[in-house]
């Protein structure tokens, strides 16, 4: 079961739902981070994600383990895309399940917030007239 997963192929929300579903889980919450067509009003052509994979997998696993433990989840999956990602496609999908929906909401938000702080993945935005590593400069 691919609890944490990094792939150059398109991510599947249905696969994530299937991975966290079981007959005892009433509340399933999923976050999908899609690639937006603009940033601060400037048109984005596509994104390119680079990962330090062994460490990214390790940090994603830490997040899933911490969330499962802290919110008594049944399951959590974190799938991240790398390489070139077109506008509108999924950069990240996080899904989790638990008997209680409040736990699922809090855990899912914790996971995406923490991923954006700790997981060594970098995205470059490509515009008509150039490219930029997101968040690199103050």
């Amino acid at each position, binding site marked *: 079961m691919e609890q944490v997963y990094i792939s150059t192929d398109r991510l599947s929300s249905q696969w994530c739902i299937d991975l966290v579903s079981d007959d005892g889980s009433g509340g399933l919450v999923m976050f999908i*981070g899609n690639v937006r067509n603009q940033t601060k009003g400037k048109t984005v052509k596509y994104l390119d994600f680079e*990962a*330090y994979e062994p460490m990214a997998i390790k940090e994603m696993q830490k997040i899933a383990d911490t969330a499962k433990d802290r919110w008594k989840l049944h399951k959590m999956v974190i799938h991240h895309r790398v390489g070139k990602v077109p506008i509108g496609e999924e950069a*990240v999908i996080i899904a989790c399940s638990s008997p209680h929906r409040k736990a699922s909401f809090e855990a899912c938000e914790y996971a995406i917030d923490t991923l954006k702080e*700790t997981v*060594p*993945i970098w995205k470059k935005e490509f515009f008509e007239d150039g490219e930029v590593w997101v968040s*690199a400069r103050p």
Partner: protein
Amino acid sequence: MKVTVTAFGIAKDILNKKQTEVEYSGTTVADLRQQLIQEFPEFAKLASLKFAVNTDYVNDDFVLNSNDEVVLIPPVSGG
């Protein structure tokens, strides 16, 4: 002390390559950071620059070994 550092994202652009050998005085991550900024002043302009050793984040007082897998971690932006 001499270590091989691997770079990702904008750090790779600053080094202009994926890996480089750095020779520096001292043994800690802080000493390595100082040497890197001296050689590549662009590192000082990043929002942050962290270091990972053998796939774990380390602090500035971490003492390096020459065979450690040292990775430069500029501001992450996954998700």
